[in-house]
């Protein structure tokens, strides 16, 4: 029969189990006996106690009887009465306890009789004492008869016998208990020591038998885990699981070696190796087979890809070279454009400032034209006032003319007066001349009057001349006033026309101002836009500079790519598919 590992371990554990059972049973038996013996010891103690209780009860009864006899007082009868009530129960329990012992039963029978006798004697004595006159003496006589004492002595004797019997039994039982306890201890100690030794030997044997080959396999597995497949697993012909494990390990190592060899070939670029999976569930093997198949396919595609890559990389190199030169040209163009945009920006700024200035000027012009409009209105008002004043002047002139006419009339009157004075003077002179010598003095007076008349005439002539001048001047003034009125009328019309014109001008100027403001705003926006364009151009310039650098890098990268493609081609050509 072959011993496999499970059986070996099972045998070892079974041995230990059996030993444990034996030791446990021995200990149980001994302890059970010990317990029983202890119960019997306890029983003996109980019997002894009960016997002592019976004895004590009897003594109580006797004590109560003596107290009553001596005193004749009822309370002294209490112990007697209680003993009489309880003694039967105690004897009965004693009989119950000593049921297993016939000797003791016999003694209890005789004890019961004695107790009955004693109690009867005691009752008799008490009854005698109850007669108050001669009770005491009669009772004393009864006590002195010694019957009671004899019965009591017999009771004591039987009780002592029973005690002795129980004490003997107790001693015997204690000895038995001690013996069984010692036996239990002996069985436990010896059995434990024996089983320890046995299990140590069995454990050592089983461990050596299983652990050593496992350790060897573990070391092998460790080397395989670290990738070392050069080991050779030696197989013995052990029939147990360890043997099977070793053989399986050897097969696995062999398979891994094959796999490694195939991988090594693949690593060398030889993809012609064909790996067969160890079983339908050989994940690694089938994966390996699939991998080589896929690799073959991929390498074929890779070869094609490398060829395409090589030619493409050459084209890319050509294209990137062109791209780099184009990027340089476009960077130059962008730089020029940026400069132009900057100039445009400055121009736009100047234009914006000019537009702002124009807007301001237009605003001022609008204000001025507004004030001009007001001025024309004021002119119209002023012209109206002038016209009124001209009318007033004309009226004054008319009055003046009328008054000068009146003056003329007055002057004519004065002239007439002067002429009449003159005539009067002449007449006076004639009269004086007629008077001859007597009229000489009168002639002088007439001469004076004539002179005055002449002066008046001259004065009136002067006044008339002046008046004529005045009238001429007045006429001229009237004419002038009329012309002035006409001129004022014309001026009013013209100023009205000028007002209308200026109003139109003001509205035009206001519109122009608004337009100029819009132009200013637009040119401001334009400036902002051009600024943004300038910023954008600057960004484009930077971007194009970066583009140039990138294009150069791209060119270098494309060259590298081309070289890489050539190298890849060479590498791929090294594979044998």
């Amino acid at each position: 029969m072959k011993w496999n590992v499970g059986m070996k371990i099972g045998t070892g554990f079974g041995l230990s189990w059996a030993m444990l059972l034996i030791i446990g049973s021995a200990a149980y038996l001994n302890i059970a006996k010990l317990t029983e013996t202890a119960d019997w010891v306890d029983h003996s103690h109980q019997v002894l106690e009960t016997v002592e209780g019976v004895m004590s009860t009897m003594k109580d009864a006797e004590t109560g009887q003596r107290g009553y006899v001596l005193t004749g007082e009822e309370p002294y009868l209490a112990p007697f009465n209680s003993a009489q009530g309880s003694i039967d129960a105690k004897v009965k329990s004693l009989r119950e306890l000593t049921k297993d012992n016939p000797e003791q039963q016999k003694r209890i029978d005789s004890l019961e009789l004695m107790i009955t006798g004693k109690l009867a004697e005691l009752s008799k004595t008490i009854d005698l004492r109850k007669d108050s006159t001669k009770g005491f003496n009669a009772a004393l006589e009864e006590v002195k008869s010694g019957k009671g004492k004899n019965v009591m002595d017999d009771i004591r004797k039987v009780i002592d016998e029973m005690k002795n019997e129980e004490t003997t039994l107790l001693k015997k039982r204690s000895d038995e208990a001690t013996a069984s306890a010692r036996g239990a201890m002996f069985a436990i100690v010896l059995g434990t020591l024996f089983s320890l030794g046995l299990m140590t030997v069995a454990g050592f044997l089983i461990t050596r038998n299983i652990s050593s080959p496992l350790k060897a396999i573990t070391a092998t597995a460790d080397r395989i885990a670290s990738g070392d497949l050069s080991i050779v697993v030696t197989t013995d012909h052990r029939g147990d699981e360890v043997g099977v494990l070793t053989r399986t390990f050897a097969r696995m190592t062999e398979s891994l070696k094959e796999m490694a060899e195939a991988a090594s070939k693949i690593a060398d670029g030889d993809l012609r190796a064909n790996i067969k999976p160890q079983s339908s569930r050989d994940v690694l093997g089938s994966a390996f087979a699939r991998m080589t198949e896929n690799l073959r396919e991929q390498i074929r595609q890779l070869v094609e890809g490398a060829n395409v890559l090589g030619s493409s990389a050459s084209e890319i190199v050509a294209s990137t070279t062109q791209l780099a030169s184009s990027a340089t040209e476009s960077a130059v163009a962008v730089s020029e454009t940026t400069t132009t945009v900057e100039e445009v920006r400055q121009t736009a700024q100047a234009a914006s400032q000019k537009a702002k200035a124009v807007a301001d000027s237009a605003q001022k012009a609008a204000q001025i034209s507004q004030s001009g409009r007001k001025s024309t209105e004021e002119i119209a008002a002023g012209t109206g006032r002038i016209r009124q004043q001209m009318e007033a002047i004309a009226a004054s002139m008319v009055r003046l003319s009328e008054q000068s006419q009146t003056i003329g009339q007055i002057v004519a009157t004065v002239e007439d007066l002067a002429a009449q004075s003159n005539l009067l003077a002449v007449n006076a002179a004639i009269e004086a001349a007629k008077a001859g010598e007597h009229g000489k003095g009168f002639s002088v007076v007439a001469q004076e009057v004539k002179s005055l008349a002449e002066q008046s005439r001259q004065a009136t002539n002067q006044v008339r001349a002046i008046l004529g001048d005045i009238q001429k001047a007045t006429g001229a003034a009237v004419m002038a006033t009329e012309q002035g009125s006409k001129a004022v009328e014309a001026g009013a019309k013209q100023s009205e026309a000028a007002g209308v014109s200026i109003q139109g001008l003001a509205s035009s100027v206001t519109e122009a101002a608004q337009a100029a403001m819009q132009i200013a705003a637009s040119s401001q926006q334009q400036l902002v836009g051009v600024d943004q364009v300038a910023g954008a151009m600057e960004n484009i310039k930077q971007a194009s500079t970066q583009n140039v650098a990138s294009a150069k890098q791209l060119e270098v990268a494309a060259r590298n790519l081309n070289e890489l493609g050539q190298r890849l081609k060479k590498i791929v050509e090294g594979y044998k598919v």
Partner: protein
Amino acid sequence: MLELLAFQLAAESYALETRWVREVSNFKDLTPLPCCPPFVLGIVNMRGRILPVLDLRKFFDLPEKGITDLHRIVFVGGNGLELGLLADSIVGVRSIPASDLQATLPTLDGIRGDYLKGVTAERLVVLDMARILADPKIIVHEEVEG
């Protein structure tokens, strides 16, 4: 000494002796009289007396410029006759020595020459009122009066 009343007539200066002059007056309230010779302008009321007014210019063939109220009338009287003479204006009364009176200018002929007494150094033509008043031509007056 000659006391003369000088007056203007048709831009010429004339004079007559004051002893013939009754009064000088304004030319006013002339009432034209029909059926009379041209030298009779009309009649005026002279302080209650109705007197004829003669125009010497008709006698002397002097240019006429119409009559205005600026004209004067010199009332003269003598030989039982009173009448008014039209004058442009009265210059005034003056006295000159009779010796200063020169003979009339030969240029003044005809009726003018008949009525003139002389010419003064101031070229005043002095009328001979005595002759004028005595002139038969003035008989018309009588006829008129009659």
